[in-house]
């Protein structure tokens, strides 16, 4: 029983990070109908900004950690908006496939620029927050795990509030529903899309910092696997659906952890992805997604 609870906790803290990255994929898809493959590399840049900022503040303090976290989120928000402005906006009226290929290009550009700028060797992420281990019965809970789950929940609540309770959130939903009609009623699409990229990238940066705190070895290709998993989580939950992305992330993290702890650990990814295929066979739009017919 205690092993089950421990694995559940491990799975939830891994899933919370997948969920944070998945939110960025799903938001951009909701507004622009395309997959931003460079998202997983913004996640990596977030971890590296955290690495450099972490050297400036004293290690293991709460305010220092929060400073690093918000610094990385702001830095990545700017990077996300910059990528959108320079690369995706000129292509917005081109075929979707072109934007998709360009997104892969941006992803590779970030990865290999990272290898030149940061170096290809892995680096050790500093311990930016104070850490401790708690024992509840036979369960061991590390402060990092609690922190990851807590921050992820807080950010998801904040996101939900932004999307449903603010003016810009209303505009985001309007653009997502019908960009032309939104423009007709006075929504500035460029501002809304920039904001969406900024918000998604800030969440990716938070994910990057949380990931690096738990697994303190970072390198320029660190975003590839978590990015792929988060992408799958977004599809699993129903792409374009924010609670769906969160659910997909938590589910994928938990399933992966349970298989990882069984004797089938080598097949971890294979089984996790097989489950994805089975779910999509029965619910093609994902767990919470609505199946809509593309209007032509």
């Amino acid at each position, binding site marked *: 029983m205690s*092993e089950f609870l*421990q*694995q559940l906790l*491990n*799975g939830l803290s*891994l899933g919370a990070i997948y969920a944070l990255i998945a939110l960025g994929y799903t938001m951009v898809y909701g507004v622009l109908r395309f997959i931003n493959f460079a998202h997983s590399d913004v996640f990596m840049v977030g971890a590296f900004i955290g690495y450099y900022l972490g050297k400036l503040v004293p290690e293991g303090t709460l305010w220092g950690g929060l400073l690093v976290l918000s610094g990385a989120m702001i830095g990545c928000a700017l990077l996300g908006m910059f990528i959108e402005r320079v690369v995706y906006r000129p292509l917005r009226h081109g075929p979707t496939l072109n934007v998709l290929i360009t997104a892969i290009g941006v992803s590779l550009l970030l990865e290999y620029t990272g*290898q030149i700028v940061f*170096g*290809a*060797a*892995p680096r*050790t992420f500093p311990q930016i927050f104070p850490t401790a*281990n708690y*024992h509840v019965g036979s369960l*061991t809970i*590390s402060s*990092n795990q609690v922190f990851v789950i807590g921050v992820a929940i807080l950010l998801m609540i904040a996101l939900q509030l932004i999307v449903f309770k603010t003016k810009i959130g209303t505009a985001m939903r309007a653009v997502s529903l019908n960009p032309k009609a939104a423009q007709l009623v006075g929504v500035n699409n460029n501002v809304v899309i920039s904001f969406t990229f900024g918000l998604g990238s800030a969440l990716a940066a938070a994910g990057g910092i949380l*990931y690096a705190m*738990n*697994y*303190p*070895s970072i*390198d320029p290709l*660190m975003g590839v*696997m978590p990015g792929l998993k988060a992408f799958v989580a977004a599809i699993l939950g129903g792409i374009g659906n924010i609670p769906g992305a969160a659910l997909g992330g938590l589910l994928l993290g938990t399933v*992966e*952890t*349970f*298989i*990882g*702890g*069984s004797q089938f*650990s*080598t097949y971890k990814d294979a089984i996790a992805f097989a489950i994805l295929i089975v779910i999509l066979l029965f619910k093609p739009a994902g767990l919470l997604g609505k199946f809509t017919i593309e209007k032509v």
Partner: protein
Amino acid sequence: MIAPRLHVLRYLRFVKNAGFWFAAALAATPCASVAAAAAATKPEPIKIGVYASLTGKEAVWGQSAEKATRLAVDDVNAAGGVLGRPLLAIIEDNQSKPGESVTAVRKLISRDKVIAILGEASSGRSLEAAPICQQARIPMISGGSNPKVTQVGNFIFRTHFIDPFQGTVMSRFAREKLGARRLALLTEVTNAYAVGLAKYFSADAAAHQTPILVEQKYSAGERDFKAQLTAIKAANVDAIFVPGYYTEAGLIVAQARELGLNLPVLGGDGWEGPQLLAIGGPALRDTYYCNNFSSESDVPETRRFIARYQARFQSMPGGTAADAYDAVLMLADAIKRADSTEPEKIRAALATTRGLRGVGGPLNVDANRDQLKPAYILGYNSGDYHLVQVIQP
């Protein structure tokens, strides 16, 4: 229509002839003869090819191997070179990636025309390069420990001890020094070295009634090991053996301690790297690994090597540096004894290397082209790894 084409043909012939005459004129000029004279006074270097992981995941090994290779080549050349000719090392990077070593070694053999290949510390990447060298009949000296490396063929040699020895040493250490009866294994399944080492460790453990109760697996580049470690915790073992590389070992130990698994964790020579200490930190208390080299060894050759390496590069050499240095020594010695730079003759001389005093211990090539060398068991104590025990083969 025919006339212009003929014209073009004639023009081409003219260009060809002009090129010929130009080259002939150049050969006759005094400057060419000066170059020839210089070549006569300064003997042509003997080219050796080196492939290493200069960048990427295991960059630490490649970079220290590169430094040690340069140090060794300079030492050999300062002592007058080999057969009166200096050594020249041509170093290629494989980015720690699978597949790249093949490209690097092919280039070294076909374009640079090297007479021998040195490299590398990783058994997996040595296994990729070895068939290329064997086919091209170019001797290769690896720093890998997996026995399959030298089994590729009679042109493949090594400077390192092999995993059956290392696995037995660690299993014995767990049993006799730590008193561990119940063992767990956490293996990197995508790594030829780790799989081999796990096999020899389990075989020795099973032969001494301390069987492996639980075996968990992971792939290269994974960062979350909590699932596997939680399963190991539930099995209630005395010690965990982690045959993998330093890049993951630090994370594994840190996560084990986070889960409250305060058991001895053991590893092989793949643990050697400064990143282990940087990631693991104080969590590494009660961890031990086996290496072919210790900075606390009192062998005079080793002491001298450490002093000279530190003076030149301001850093501490590790086992990969010692292997790289010894590979150059072994090759230089073989070329001298063969009295030739012909790969076949060098191969024959390498196979009869006996009692050569390397910086990482004596070099003796046995019938399987492997080495018998002492193993150093290092244990973590207040911020660094220190020598715990030396086990002779």
